[in-house]
């Protein structure tokens, strides 16, 4: 559904080559395939290029090398048929001077699968129904909730969300997780770029970690817990190479190689730290 092949990209187009032999600056020879029926969690440090990668997928930025294919079309062409099946929810949202109802009237007709009933339902769940205010006068969290409701109601095949839970209050984060879980089906691909890993822990079923212009990890949560063990004070197993340890008042949290294929619960924060600190080991483990 989304295929990135040997992507090269840098913001400074003049400095094509730099001393570290990174030809394009941000991404070099980056390849990634994303399939429908999954919710991908795109993780990475600040400046790793998460938003840039999302923009390349959506045809908003053009790669300097390689090809970005979305729904079998070149993303850079921004074809209408592709855009009808893609919704990009930005971190810094744009909301016109319109009421929610007028926003729906203006933009829903572009999406053939848009459902007014679903939109009303999602707004209700977020306690946003019937707000007469203009969208640009709403609070940041309210704007986000209105746009999340709209994004879900478009029923596009691809839904890209950049930091969707930023600015949401605690009850709204729960509602968001519930609505997202009910909205995913086998034909839909959702990509969520986030730093708020604890908010989306239960939602994500494929973890993609971006680091230094490369995909460090792209694996399902099942595969991750099969190969890595998330343990506390060696209660599950004392075997396997330890990749990361975090001392807390509740004990020593560890990420280690799951040599005995023991069951454990994935902790995205620990996984991320383990991957960043053991790049080669983690890459080799998931090859």
């Amino acid at each position, binding site marked *: 559904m989304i295929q990135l092949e040997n992507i090269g990209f840098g913001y400074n187009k003049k400095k094509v080559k730099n001393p570290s032999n990174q030809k394009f600056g941000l991404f070099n020879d980056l390849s990634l395939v994303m399939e429908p029926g999954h919710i991908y969690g795109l993780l990475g440090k600040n400046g790793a290029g998460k938003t840039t990668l999302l923009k390349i997928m959506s*045809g908003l930025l053009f790669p300097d090398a390689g090809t970005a294919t979305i729904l079998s079309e070149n993303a850079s062409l921004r074809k*209408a048929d592709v855009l*009808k099946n*893609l*919704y990009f929810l930005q971190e810094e949202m744009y909301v*016109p001077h*319109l009421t929610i109802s*007028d926003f729906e*009237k203006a933009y829903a007709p*572009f999406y053939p699968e848009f459902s007014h009933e679903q939109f009303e339902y999602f707004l209700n769940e977020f306690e946003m129904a019937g707000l007469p205010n203009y969208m640009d006068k709403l609070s940041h969290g309210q704007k986000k909730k209105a746009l999340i409701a709209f994004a879900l109601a478009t029923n596009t095949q691809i839904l890209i969300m950049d930091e969707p839970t930023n600015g949401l209050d605690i009850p709204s984060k729960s509602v968001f997780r519930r609505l997202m879980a009910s909205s995913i089906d086998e034909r839909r691909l959702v990509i969520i770029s986030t730093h708020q890993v604890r908010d989306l822990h239960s939602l994500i079923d494929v973890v993609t970690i971006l680091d230094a212009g490369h995909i460090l990890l792209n694996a399902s949560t099942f595969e991750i817990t099969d190969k890595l063990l998330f343990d506390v004070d060696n209660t599950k197993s004392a075997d396997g190479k330890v990749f990361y340890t975090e001392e807390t008042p509740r004990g020593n949290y560890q990420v280690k190689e799951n040599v005995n294929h023991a069951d454990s619960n994935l902790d995205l924060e620990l996984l991320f730290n383990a991957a960043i600190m053991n790049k080669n080991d983690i890459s080799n483990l998931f090859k």
Partner: protein
Amino acid sequence: MNIKNITNLLKAYFIENWKTDLFQLGILSAVILIGSILNGGVEDMSSFAMTVAVIFLIIYPERLFRNLHGNSSKIHYLTIPASNGEKVVANMLLTNIYFVAVVVLACALGLGLAHLYLTARGMGGLRFQPNTYWDRILVIYAGLSVFFFGSIYFRKRTTLTTFGVGLLIITLFSVLFTVTMFANGMMLIPKDAAFHDYLWNFNFSFSLSDKASSVLAYITVAVVIIYFYVLSFLRMKETEA
């Protein structure tokens, strides 16, 4: 090119902008009305109305692509499900038909009300015959295509920047033309004629009939219009967020 997508773009524009457009129509009508009344007794105020209208028409296209001037609004606009070509065509329709119609309507409204007022006060009436300004309207359309391109190309103060760049190009071209002419010893300016009179009445060595000149002028204007809209489309395709 999908007509439905273009219709949806136009619909979205009207839902977002009808209040602003109505407000600006009111302002334009009021300016023309007040201007015409203050010049009461002058029968033909069309030139004044046209001047005000042209200023409004130049300002309008800036609003069309204002979505391209902010990062979040740019992402919003570029991901609206319509092709680059459909977005350019929708905005061309707004610029060349809707805006012109709104401005002509505002002129007619302003002049009509002024006519009623002046007639009632026994101060004479006014005339408004936009058809007599056909040549100027064509030039206005050519100008609109330039400002249309400017609104896609420049990110800040697009109207002013386009105007400034246009003025600079015209100035450079005039200087180049004059220098070349003098450098070639072509002292063609009659001693008794002012320079601008000479330029105004400049005749090319290959003398054309009036009809041929007219056709050539229309072709030139058409080429300018097509050139800038094609350029706008290409720029739109290349626009990133």
